[in-house]
């Protein structure tokens, strides 16, 4: 019993009080574990930091108004009329305060000059809390005309959304493949995503053919967005609504941008939080985290597959000491279609040195633990393309020491042993008393 100085009589009442409240708490909490899990809890509750509301997400719809939108193949209606109707319904259903803009491409230039037609993209509704009447009027005025400069429109939309901490989403709706490459829209998407400002492009194909689908899938994958096809007006409305809702919900702050080092020495020093970086195939990225003796390091990494990669792949996250000694590793591998490949690790110094007096030492100086992220992807994408994006989460918490052997027992065997021991002790005591009484009587 580790009593020390506090085990005087004065401390007894305090101990009783504390133990009572502690037990009360346990009694109250214990059986309600099942109950508490029924109630949805905020998964990311972070008690250490004040609650901040992230800026509302900014969304821009990018609509293809090129000549091919005249085709009347969606339930006998033209693609543009279906898109216009869907937009109107979405604008009507928008909650107040949503920052939504609309950009069109191929809407004005009617000539045959490709160079001119391929610069034809305008923002018709600025990204702001939406003005329903103005937005609807702008949509109604659209007439399908020109070329399909998807890449340029994406660049424009990224500019319209500006920078900032809020999530930025582009919803690209098109029916035909880009007729203006270069720039290849997929390269543009990867280049926009590589700028580090959190940008997601969700794509929607209107009655898409194989080429359009492949292009949209590539754009979506490059930015971590989604792809959907719409064959009926209802599908289109439903899907746009879904994407706007989803954008509205994602009120997560953009992770901090960091550039990992080539080796442990001089690698960036990270505090707890979420970071993003990029790593080329077979590249290693190093970071350092200060961890005190009584603290535990937690790290996790998710590498996004933003391009076509070979079938099998893996990720490795290692924590090493400053001298290169490996402390712990986390690894995961997979094959087939996936969005991210993740792994994580925990590490803490073995046992805090109890013998050293903390009052004389003061706070122990933290040791720097190095983290290195490596991958085993293989891809035929040009090697000069920006690396695969990944998300790194760092946390440093109080260490959890190994529990002592439990001081209490359980199980039927325990009851049997105790009962038999009690029986034997009772019998022994009985005989002893009998012998003692007998001796006393004779005397």
């Amino acid at each position, binding site marked *: 019993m*580790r009593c020390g100085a*506090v085990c005087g009589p004065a401390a007894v009442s305090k*101990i009783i009080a*504390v*133990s009572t409240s502690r037990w009360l708490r346990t*009694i109250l909490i*214990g*059986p309600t*574990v*099942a109950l*508490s*899990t029924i109630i*949805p809890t*905020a998964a*990311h509750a972070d008690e250490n930091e004040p609650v901040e509301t992230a800026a509302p997400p900014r969304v821009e719809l990018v609509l293809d108004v090129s000549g091919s939108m005249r085709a009347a193949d969606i339930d006998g209606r033209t693609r543009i009329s279906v898109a216009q109707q869907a937009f109107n319904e979405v604008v009507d259903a928008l909650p107040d305060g949503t920052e939504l803009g609309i950009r069109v491409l191929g809407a004005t230039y009617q000539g045959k000059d490709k160079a001119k037609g391929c610069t034809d993209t305008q923002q018709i509704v600025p990204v702001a809390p939406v003005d329903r009447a103005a937005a609807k009027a702008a949509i109604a005025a659209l007439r399908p005309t020109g070329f399909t400069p998807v890449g340029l429109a994406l660049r424009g939309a990224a500019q319209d959304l500006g920078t900032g*901490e809020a999530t930025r989403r582009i919803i690209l709706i098109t029916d035909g493949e880009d007729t203006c490459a270069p720039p290849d829209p997929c390269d543009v998407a990867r280049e926009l995503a590589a700028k580090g400002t959190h940008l997601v492009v969700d794509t929607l194909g209107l009655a898409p053919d194989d080429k359009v*689908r492949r292009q949209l899938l590539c754009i979506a994958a490059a930015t971590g967005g989604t792809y*959907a*096809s719409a*064959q009926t007006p209802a*599908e289109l409305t439903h899907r746009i609504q879904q994407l706007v809702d989803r954008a509205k*919900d994602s009120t*997560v702050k953009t992770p901090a941008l*960091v550039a990992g080092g080539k080796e442990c020495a001089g690698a960036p*020093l*990270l*505090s707890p*939080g979420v*970071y993003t970086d990029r790593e080329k195939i077979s590249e290693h990225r190093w970071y*350092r985290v*200060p*961890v005190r003796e009584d603290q535990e390091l937690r790290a996790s*990494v998710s590498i996004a597959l933003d391009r076509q990669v070979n079938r099998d792949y893996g990720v490795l996250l290692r924590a090493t000491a400053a001298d290169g000694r490996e402390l712990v590793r986390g690894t995961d591998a997979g094959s*087939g279609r*996936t*969005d991210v490949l*993740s792994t*994580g*690790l*925990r590490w803490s110094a073995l046992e805090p040195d109890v013998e050293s007096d903390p009052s004389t030492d003061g706070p122990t100086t*933290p040791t*720097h633990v190095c983290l290195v992220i490596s991958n085993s992807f293989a891809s035929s994408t040009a090697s000069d393309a920006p690396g695969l994006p990944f*998300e790194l989460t760092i*946390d*440093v*918490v109080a260490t959890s020491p190994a529990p002592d052997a*439990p001081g*209490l*027992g*359980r199980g*039927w*065997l325990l*009851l*049997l*042993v105790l*009962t038999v021991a009690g029986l034997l002790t*009772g*019998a*022994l005591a009985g005989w002893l*008393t009998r012998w003692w009484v007998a001796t006393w009587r004779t005397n």
Partner: protein
Amino acid sequence: MLIHHQQGHVRLHNRLAAAAFAIACAALLPAAAAAAPSPSPGSATVNRSGTSFLTATAVGVGQPVQVAASTGDYLYWSFSAAAGQITEIALTVSLPPAGKRTGASTWTVDVFDGLRRRQACTAGVQTPIAAATATSVSLGCSLRRVRSWAEPWSGDPLPGTYYIRLSVTDLPEPDLGLPIQVDMLLGAHGDSNADDGELKAPLVPRVKPGEVMAEAGSVHPSASPSPTPDEATEALDWLPDLSARWIWTTVGGVLAAAAGVVGFSLTWRRRK
């Protein structure tokens, strides 16, 4: 406790002990393990899902989830689990009409812990293949019992946040982007064993952007401050938390005392 109870060391079954134990802890025994997750009455249906770990939608046990999505979307949900809990995930995907699909598709439900480490399923169909003509496909996953403590080097499930990811891992490319509907329900059973150590901080990941510190050594780590232990709490650290072990041990003591009295009286009865 339950495991002992269920597996029943029947050989050692002691009627007296059983009666005493039943009286002592009938109230504390949680209901027997539920077979399949069922929605808890009055819980609101969740119509959302996230598209990444950071945007995962939090759902509770027994809370029905119904989401419309597209084939090929990666759908993320998160839930929190306490020590001792065994979580069961049941998912049903209503597939697009067979006429629009061109082939079979493989669906996968992956579960990750708060550190995004892959978690094993002990039961359930984790990666079913839906035939080209199927109208829906069911997925399931039972997780391991959440430990209250584990060494940092181990991958054991710990209290904190868990992530569920639903994805289609193999299908003909033209089938991507078609509308689907996903129904999900979480069930949980098990009891908390508070006596196997304690994790000081649950595996709840940070979502705030981090800050790169300028220079090595110039800034102290802005880690979450370790809690300053209360003196009285410190003095009571040796005392195990309230758990079934207290009941077992106390009942054992009572039985031993009773047996002692019986043993004592046995030796005296002969004289009469």
